[in-house]
């Protein structure tokens, strides 16, 4: 299952995957839309999974992709929940006023019935009317449901005086630090002697990992079990305490 890729194919895959991995992380840090940044990071982690596959760690690659696709989706859900502006529109990317006033129609009786075209409400049959202010359509009906989001909405309507920057004032120091760290590591990589790849025995990696986990590396298995249990307990305690 390995080592059979021809060199050009392997290099091509490597370059593409590492570009996606690095580019995805970069996008994650640069974009204003938190949802997009979550999805960029998901792409980046999937590409790292692809690199694992290239290194013949097929089980680990699937685990990585499985874990991070689900994990990042949950992360995005939470981002939407706690961020005042998950779509990034308040950062001036797309002023909502630009769109025409009547590109959305709403039933006067059922505010949740909305349509792109004028027509009749499927629930009561009344004619749909142009939505007065479609920008607020997500939050308008939202406010009356949750007290806590009323606060959030208040922040929103107070608009630009709220401090919305994604990064704080130490950005330059952070960039320099990150750059120095990466440069140092790259230097170490360039000047150290590295081994040539060893041929890999044909293994069923799932079985090998399972056997090792329950044999020599039992301590890792049990440690992981305890860790996951702690994670479950901790998550439930924190998230339930209101």
């Amino acid at each position: 299952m390995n080592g059979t890729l021809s060199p050009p194919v392997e290099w091509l895959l490597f370059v593409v995957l590492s570009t996606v991995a690095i580019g995805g992380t970069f996008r994650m840090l640069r974009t204003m839309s938190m949802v997009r940044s979550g999805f960029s990071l998901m792409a980046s982690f999937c590409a790292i999974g692809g690199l694992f596959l290239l290194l013949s760690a097929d089980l680990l690659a699937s685990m990585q992709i499985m874990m991070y696709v689900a994990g990042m989706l949950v992360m995005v859900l939470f981002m939407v929940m706690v961020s005042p502006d998950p779509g990034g529109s308040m950062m001036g990317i797309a002023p909502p006023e630009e769109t025409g006033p009547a590109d959305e129609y709403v039933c006067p009786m059922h505010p949740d019935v909305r349509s792109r075209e004028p027509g009749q409400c499927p629930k009561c049959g009344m004619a749909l009317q142009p939505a007065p202010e479609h920008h607020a359509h997500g939050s308008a009906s939202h406010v009356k449901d949750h007290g806590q989001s009323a606060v959030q909405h208040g922040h929103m309507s107070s608009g630009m005086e709220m401090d919305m920057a994604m990064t704080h004032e130490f950005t330059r120091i952070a960039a320099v630090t990150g750059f120095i760290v990466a440069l140092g590591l790259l230097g170490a990589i360039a000047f150290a002697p590295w081994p040539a790849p060893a041929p890999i025995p044909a293994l069923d990696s799932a079985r090998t990992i399972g056997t090792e986990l329950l044999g020599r590396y039992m301590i890792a298995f049990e440690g992981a079990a305890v860790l996951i249990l702690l994670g479950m307990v901790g998550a439930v305690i924190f998230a339930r305490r209101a």
Partner: protein
Amino acid sequence: MSVPLQAYLAVAAILFGLGVYGVLSQRGAVMVLMSTEVILNAAMLNTVAFWRYRNPADFAGQIFALVILTIAAVEMAVGLAVIVLVYRNRSTQMVDRVASLRG
């Protein structure tokens, strides 16, 4: 295996640097959490690459990567729980607004 070990290590180093930058520069707690995940992933990539090039017959490297993956997952779960808790009490998730974790 025509791609040398250094290439993988270089990718991991760049990811690590980006992760450090993210942890230090981002204000949103979720973004900080995600940058931490990047750092952990860089470490995982290194581990797997070393496994492949040093001693592929011994699966210790992969198992170590698996442990890192577990830590990353648990960190994500607990971190998000803390963020939810802080958000409920303070209505913000910006880390510099939350100097103490006392609810």
